[in-house]
């Protein structure tokens, strides 16, 4: 077995070059950013599902965007992501979209549901689903 402190072995494992792009889990990115001892120089890219295409879609007609297809926890991940990265525009888009969709969601909590409702309900992300099921006992 290799020596744990073998510097050559450590260097051999350290293959990341400056300027390379890798996917890492979000929690890891947060750990790196929050690390108490110095920082690793890196930029965090905005995921595609928060990109301009989706933003425009949400701005135009929030209720038709298929969120679970983009990210099942679209809004919840959004809150975490916005804690790490300051992006007021994204925050605004998410907030407005959430509000716009809420009204439609609320309609479905109160009326038993008509023929085209399942299609809409499939487009809800997890947070919205939770909101919806909260009320079903009264419908």
């Amino acid at each position, binding site marked *: 077995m290799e020596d744990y402190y073998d510097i050559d072995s450590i260097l051999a494992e350290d293959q990341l070059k400056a300027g390379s792009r890798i996917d890492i889990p979000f929690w890891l990115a947060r750990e790196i950013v929050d690390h108490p001892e110095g920082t690793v120089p890196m930029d965090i890219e905005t995921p595609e599902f928060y990109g301009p295409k989706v933003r425009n879609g949400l701005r135009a007609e929030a209720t038709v965007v298929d969120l679970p297809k983009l990210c099942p926890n679209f809004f919840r991940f959004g*809150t975490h992501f916005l804690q790490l990265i300051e992006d007021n525009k994204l*925050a605004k888009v998410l*907030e407005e979209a959430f509000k716009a969709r809420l009204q439609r969601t609320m309609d479905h909590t109160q009326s038993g549901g008509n023929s085209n409702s399942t299609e809409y309900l499939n487009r809800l992300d997890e947070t919205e689903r939770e909101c919806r099921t909260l009320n079903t006992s009264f419908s």
Partner: protein
Amino acid sequence: MALPRHLKNGLTPLEIEFLAENELIEIAASIDSKQNLELLGGTLPPLKPLQMSKVPLWMAISLKKKQKCNIVVPKWMTIDSLQKSLKDEQEQEVFSALPYHYMETAQLLLENACDDIPSADAVRTLLKDLREARQSKARKGVEALGLTYIQMDHIGLMEINEIRPFFTKAFYELQKLRPAGDANDVYGAPEPYRDGSASLSSSMLDSSRQ
């Protein structure tokens, strides 16, 4: 909260009906109770035939079932008054002034004392229209879910209860979506609308941030 699932949504409609039964209502009794009515909630003067007396709704209904009284329809539940409420409801942005327990009371009366209500069917239709108008108003409240609070005067207990779980959850999620920098605004200055002082304080906040 560690509550069973069916209790998490607040009160059930039946519980609300139970609460509404404690409201006082006017009846014309046809019996003489001869003595004061000692109830848990207090003492009521004796019932006398051909005299108006105020008793809790549950008692009125129970007497009505035994055909020992006639219930006087509350003022707000007459055709004229309901028509006016409906008109207000459709014209104004705020909820029209109906009693806190209007839905439950109306339901109980229509169910148990139908013969005491003049043109009960028309009353029923009016109430239904009112309910629909109010429901769509409550639905508009979602748009108003904003920074600090949402005001809905004259909304009934049944109506609050209907939207409460949804609104609280939605409100909570909406606040989480706000960037951390706005945290001051959440509990501090209300949205700068109507009130001049509010817009002043929020502009001060802005300048202090820069």
